[in-house]
């Protein structure tokens, strides 16, 4: 990782601080606890959140952005963005923060882009919502941003509609749209899961370069342990709405650190088929109710 960025994150105040975050859904059949007491701080780094479906990883990202749908309720002892308290902030101020300072890339560009507007217009709009700029300037910036996400003919792609672009290109457009406002924190919720492996790596490379260049904080939400391990600096392993453990990403693959690992993390790693360690039968995961106690 970039050394200067690391020093900065230790000296400066953290970008994001969460303490005892809880997300509850009040349903007719009772309260569903999606996130139960999650705490972490985010500096200018790549933080991975891994877990299986239902572990609360996506809800954590949404809670930070105030995007939890009704009847969800977010509570926390502390939720701050650069020292500003997000819990007491009114909806208007939260909305201003969203997209401008903290933004989010979703999993599938097919469902996140407006199908009846050109992709370029949508990027330009994202810029003009947050910055005072003429249509002309917004267009220029959008073209430059498309180039930054390595789209070869920005002027041509600008005029295309979402159905005319491939999945990989659509995801680059999404990233361009999220980064054009120059946020401090980018939350990427499974940004490459809908893509082929080779395209996936290109997108990660773009994200990685932009995060390093701009010194952003990245929260990378994924179910893919291999990917998180190779891409992130730190990893939170979530299960049932709780953090089972937080560890440096490099330690996930480190055999000598196995003894220190949480059994759930080991279980997740063990049930993946591995090219180098073929076995007749895959290990299955035994879940211990005590983990959620």
């Amino acid at each position, binding site marked *: 990782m970039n050394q200067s960025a690391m020093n900065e994150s230790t000296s400066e105040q953290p970008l994001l601080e969460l303490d005892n975050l809880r997300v509850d859904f009040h349903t007719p059949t009772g309260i569903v606890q999606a996130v139960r007491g999650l705490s972490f701080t985010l500096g200018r780094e790549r933080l991975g959140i891994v877990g*299986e479906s239902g572990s609360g990883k996506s809800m954590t990202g949404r809670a930070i952005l105030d995007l939890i749908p009704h009847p969800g309720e977010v509570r926390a002892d502390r939720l701050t963005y650069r020292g500003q308290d997000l819990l007491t902030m009114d909806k208007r101020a939260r909305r201003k923060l969203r997209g401008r300072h903290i933004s989010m890339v979703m999993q599938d560009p097919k469902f996140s882009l407006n199908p009846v507007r050109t992709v370029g217009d949508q990027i330009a709009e994202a810029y003009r919502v947050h910055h005072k700029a003429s249509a002309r300037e917004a267009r220029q910036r959008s073209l430059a941003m498309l180039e930054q996400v390595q789209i070869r003919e920005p002027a041509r792609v600008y005029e295309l509609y979402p159905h005319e672009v491939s999945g990989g290109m659509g995801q680059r457009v999404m990233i361009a749209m999220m980064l054009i406002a120059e946020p401090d924190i980018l939350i990427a919720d499974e940004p490459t899961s809908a893509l082929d*492996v*080779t395209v996936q790596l290109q997108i990660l490379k773009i994200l990685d370069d932009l995060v390093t260049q701009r010194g952003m904080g990245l929260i990378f939400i994924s179910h893919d342990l291999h990917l998180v391990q*190779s891409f992130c600096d730190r990893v939170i392993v979530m299960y049932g709405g709780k953090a089972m453990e937080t560890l440096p990403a490099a330690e996930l693959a480190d055999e000598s650190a196995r003894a220190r690992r949480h059994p759930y993390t080991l279980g997740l790693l063990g049930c993946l*088929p591995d*090219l180098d360690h073929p076995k007749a039968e895959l290990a*299955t995961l035994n879940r211990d109710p005590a983990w959620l106690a």
Partner: protein
Amino acid sequence: MTTNPAIRVEKLNVSYGDSHVVKDLSFSVAPGESYGIVGESGSGKSTVLRVLSGLNRDWSGTVAIEGQVQPKRRDKAFYRAVQMVFQDPYGSLHPKKTVDDTLAEPLAIHGIGDAEARIARAMSEVGLPASFRFRYPHQLSGGQRQRVAIARALVLEPTILLLDEPTSALDVSIQAEVLNLLQALRQERKLTYILVSHDLAVVAHMCQRLLVMQFGRGVEEMTAATLAARSPQTDYARQLLTASEGFRRVG
């Protein structure tokens, strides 16, 4: 290769309008073998399965199952021998039919009696408790649904199972359970598998041989051992292998 492969495909070509999605593809699978097809989206791997299963009738070339050259429209005997499991257990089960209905339908179509016992057996083989028999798909988890889909395929006692990304919609822990189940069933029943997947590790775990496809062509056929030894011959197969190992930061 044995004289009578379970599946033999020769010079298979499929076009959708102007796009030629499978080009001169040939391969054969021995009885009891597990054969993998890997490739990225648009490589034609799912189309091959749809041709084999008779879902796609617009193709040219030769498809022979257990020595018999297959016509475009398959007969009932074919469907008793060859069954398919689809990727998405949320989409492949009828939402208004119970597990019992889903498993009874193929038996009724083929006029097989003794449905009661066969359904109970198929369910126990895939590890579904008998109490699930009258549940609807929405009352089941993703892994349980995929078990129902596998039970539906097995209830006719086929010899060949076509698996189209059977675990890619599932969590890794559930994937392990379903893959273990498929392995055990293959050994028990001497089934022949074709497994289509984008996950090289899954294919290496499940299959003895595999075919890498790109743009509708078979790029390279290799053994799982070659894959594990990281020694494919072609650039594309190597590239796919490198990409599957995760992100690498340069410098």
